[in-house]
C-alpha cells in the first residue's frame, strides 16, 4: 500500500536478490544487500505489482512487504539477473494473466452474445463477449477484450494479425 506523501523509491537492482525457499513456506522472498555484500534487509512473502501491466509490463514494478508497505520500485525487469529474474517473471505471469490473441478463428454475434473462437499464446480458447463495448481500444491497433466472466485477452497489434483475423476484428471495432 502506498502511504500518503511517500515518494517513489527506485531500488538498485544490483542490491536485490529475489528467491524462493525450497519448502515454500515463505512465498517470494527478497534480500537487500549493501554495496559491500552485507545483508541490509530480508523480507519474506513479498508482493509484486506492475504499475502499467498492459502498456509497460516490464517496467516500474513495485515490491511490497507482507503487510503491503511499499518497499520500493524496480525500474526495469531486464536489470535483474539469474534467479531473481526468473522468479519475478514467473510471479508476474501468475499475478497478471492476460493471454495474447494470436489468431481469430471466428467472431459470431448470435442473439445478443458475441462468441469468439481464438488461438492465444496460452492455447485455443472460446469465450463470450457481452457487447462491443467490452473491446477496448488502447490505440495503435491494440485491443483488450473482456469476456462475460471478466477474463481479459490482449490483441497486441491488429495489423500484425493475419488477414482473416483482421477482417473479422474489423467488424467489431
Amino acid at each position: 500500500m502506498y502511504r500518503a506523501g511517500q515518494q517513489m523509491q527506485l531500488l538498485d537492482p544490483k542490491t536485490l536478490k529475489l528467491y524462493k525457499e525450497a519448502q515454500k513456506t515463505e512465498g517470494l522472498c527478497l534480500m537487500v544487500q549493501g554495496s559491500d555484500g552485507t545483508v541490509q534487509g530480508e523480507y519474506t512473502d513479498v508482493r509484486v505489482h506492475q504499475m502499467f501491466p498492459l502498456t509497460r509490463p516490464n517496467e516500474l514494478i513495485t515490491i511490497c512487504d507482507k503487510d503491503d508497505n511499499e518497499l520500493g520500485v524496480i525500474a526495469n525487469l531486464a536489470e535483474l539477473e539469474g534467479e531473481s529474474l526468473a522468479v519475478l517473471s514467473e510471479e508476474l505471469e501468475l499475478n497478471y494473466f492476460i493471454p495474447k490473441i494470436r489468431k481469430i478463428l471466428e467472431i459470431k454475434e448470435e442473439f445478443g452474445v458475441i462468441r469468439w473462437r481464438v488461438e492465444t499464446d496460452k492455447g485455443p480458447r472460446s469465450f463470450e463477449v457481452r457487447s462491443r463495448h467490452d473491446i477496448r481500444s488502447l490505440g495503435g491497433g491494440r485491443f483488450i477484450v473482456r469476456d462475460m466472466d471478466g477474463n481479459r485477452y490482449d490483441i497486441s497489434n491488429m495489423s500484425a494479425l493475419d488477414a482473416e483475423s483482421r477482417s473479422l476484428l474489423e467488424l467489431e471495432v
Partner: protein
Amino acid sequence: MIFLLSGLTTPESVQADLEQAPETVRDRLQMLAGTKEVIYSVNSDMNLLGTYTDESWLFITEDKLIVFDSGHQDGSLVVHLNQLTGARIRQLYGNSVLELRFMEDAPADMLLQVAQTIDEPDAETEASADLDDVPLTGPSADVFRFSRTLDDQMDEVLQDLTHRLIPTAQDKEVDWQPEADTDLFGSNKRKGICRSCGRVLPPGQSVCPRCMDRRRLLGRAFQYVLPYKWLFIGNFLSTVMVTMLGLVPPLFTTVLLDRVFPNNDMRLLIITLVSLAGVYFFQSLLNSTHIYLQQLLGNRVVVNLRTDVYRHVQRLTLKFYDKRQTGWIMSRVTNDTSYLQSFLVNGLQDIVIQVFTLVGIAVIMFSINWKLALLALLPTPIVSYATTKFSRRMHKVYHRIWRRVSNMHAVLGDTIPGIRVVKAFNREDEEVAKFVEKNEEVFNENIRAARVSSVFFPAMGFTTQLGGLLVWGIGGYQVIQGIGGLSVGVLMAFINYTWRFYAPIQALSRLSEQLQGATTAAERLFEILDTPIEAEDEKGTALPEIKGHIRFEDVSFYYEKGDPVLQRIDLDIQPGEMIGLVGSSGSGKTTLINLIARFYDVSEGRILLDGHDLRDLDLAFLRNHIGMVLQEPFLFHGTIAENIAYGRPEAGLDEIVEAAMMANAHGFIMELPDGYDTRIGERGVGLSGGQKQRISIARAILKNPRILILDEATSAVDTETEKLIQQAIDRLIQGRTTIAIAHRLSTLQNASRLVVLQDGKVAEVGTHEELLQKEDGVFARLVQLQSEVARSRLV
C-alpha cells in the same frame, strides 16, 4: 461442470455428470478415490502452467482431494483432507489459484510432491474469515489454477472444503450441515445457461433467444402492428393494387404499336390514351393512399415501440446502467426501434410487392410468348446469385461503416461534454486530430464500399442489358421474318417487362440480409425488454406509516464479484436519529446509502426498515419516504421551480418557496432576473456548484421524507452559507431519521452518533465526544488533522 452430492443431488445425477468426463479421467479417478463417493468435481480451463486445457480436474471425495494437472508430478496430486489445515483461493488478475496449507508434520513425500508444483505459494498471515482459528504455519502450495470463468464454482467448492477442514484441523467434531444449498447455486452467477440448449444466455436474460426462433422473434415484433390491423390491411390492399396497376401500361403499348399506328386509328388512339390516363389516375390515387397509410402505420408502431422500450429502460436497475454506456441505451431507443419499424411496415410490404410484381410479369410474359420469355429471363440466376453474394458482402461493409461512424460519435460524446477541460488544458488541437483520425476512417470505409458498389451495379446493369439485347435480337429477327406472329408492339411490351423484372429479383436477393438486420434489431430490443426491471416479480408491501428505524444486519456488498466494497456492516439507526457518516474517500459511504434507497441490493445480509426487509417493501413506497441529496447534484432542463418540485410536482408555490428558504437558496434565486422561473441550462450550467447543491437540498426538503440522506450536501458552499444550511438542516431533521455524509467534520456536530467507515468496514461508532476520547481512534485522528489544516490556513 460441478455437482454436489451430499444431501441434495441424487447419486444418479452425479453419475450422469461424471459421464461427461473422459473415460481415462474416470478410470484414474476410480483408482485414486477408491470406493469413496466423489462430492465435487471441477474441470478447469487451464493448467498450473497457465496453458488452456480441459485436462485439469479437481475432485473432492469424503476423505481426499485429488487434482489431475500436468503441472503436478506424474500429472496428479492426492491429498488426504486430514493433512490439510486450510485452503483458500487467491484471486489474481484474470486467474485464481487454489492454495492448500498442510500440517507442519505432513509426510515428507507429500511435501516433496507439492514442491514440484511450478507455482509459487504465497503464504499469507491473514487468514480468510472462515479460517480465523486455524494455525497457518505449515507449508502451502498452489494446487489448482483456473480462470474467472470458474470463480463461482470454485467459491462453492472452497466453502464446502473449509467446512470439511475445520473439524479436522481443530481436532473436534463439528456437526457440519451443508449450507442452504439452494443458495450455493445462487443467483450471483455471472452468466446463465439455457436449459434446453446449454448455450450461454445474453446478460440478464432468462430466455435463450436461440430457442426462441426467428419467426417467433419477428412474430413478437409483429404484435406491435396488430392493434392497427385494419390500417395494415388497408395499406396492404392499396399496395397490391398499385402494383397490379403498374403492370398494365405496357399492354397499352402493344395496342398502340400493333393496332393504332399500323391502321392510323385515331379513335382507338384516343380511347387508349384516355384509358391509360384512367389507369395512371387510379394508380396515383391508390399510391397516395398507400403512402399516407404506410406513414401513419409506421409512425404509430415506432412510437409505441419506443415508448415501451423507454418505459422499461426507466425501470432498469442501476447495475444495468453501470455496465452500459448511455449512448448504447439511447441508440436502442432511437435507432433500433426505427429499424424494426421500417422492416415491419415497409420491409414486409416490399416483399409482397416484389413477389406480386415478379409473378405478375412472369405470367404475362409467358402467356404472350413463352420461348421469348425463357430467353429474356436467362440472366435471372446470374443476377440473383450475384446479388445475394454482393449483399452479403455489402452487409459487412456497411456494418464496418456503421462501426466507424459510431467510433466517431464516441469522440464527440466524450469531448463535447468535457469541453471545459479541453480548453483548460489547451488540448483543442489534439482533440481535433483525434476526430480527424476517426473521420478519415469513416471516409476510408465509405470509399471501400463505393469501390464494391461501383463495380457491382454497372456489372449487373450490363448483364441485364445484355439480356435485353438478346430479346431485341431474337425478337427483332422473329418480327422481321414474321415467325410466330410476333408483332412490334408485343416485342416492345416484352422488352419493357424484361427491364422491370430484374428490380424485384435484386430486391428479393437482398431479403435475407434485411431479415437478418431486422432480427438483430429485434433481438437487441427484446433483450432490453426482457431484462428484469427493479423489483419486478415482487409486489412489495407498503406500510401504513414509517417510523424510520433502519437496521443493517451483517451486510456485505460488492459491485464486482470478488471485490467487496462493504463488509459485514452491522448498524442500528433509531427513528429520528441523525447519523454522521465519515471515512476517507472511497471507503464506501455513498455505497452504503445507495443500499438504503435500494439503488443496489445487498449481496449478503439484510437491511431492515421498521423490522421489514427492504426487499419485501414496495420500491415506490420506500423511495417516496426517502429524501436524497446526491453527491453530484443533477438538475434537469427546466425552471428552478420545476427542479425543486421534481419529487412533488403538485406542491404549491408557497411550499416551493418555503423549501428554498429552508435550503437557503431563496436569496440567490431572487437575484436572478426570472426568479423561480429561471430556466436552467444543460446540467445546470449557469448556476454555481453551491447553488446547485442548495437547489437539490430544497428538492429533498419539499418531499418531506421520513428518512433524509445527505451525501456531501454542503461540500461546495462557503462556511457562512454552510452554517445557514446547517441551521436549516437542524430544523429539518426534527423527527426524521437522517444520515449525513460529510468530509468537513464540523458539519456533523449535531449528529447523535457518528459512524466511521474504513475500507468498507465500520471502524468506530459513537457520539462525537466518545470518539474523541479514543486515544488512537480513526475519528480522533481525523479531527486533529482537520484542525491542524484549519490552523495552518489561518496562519
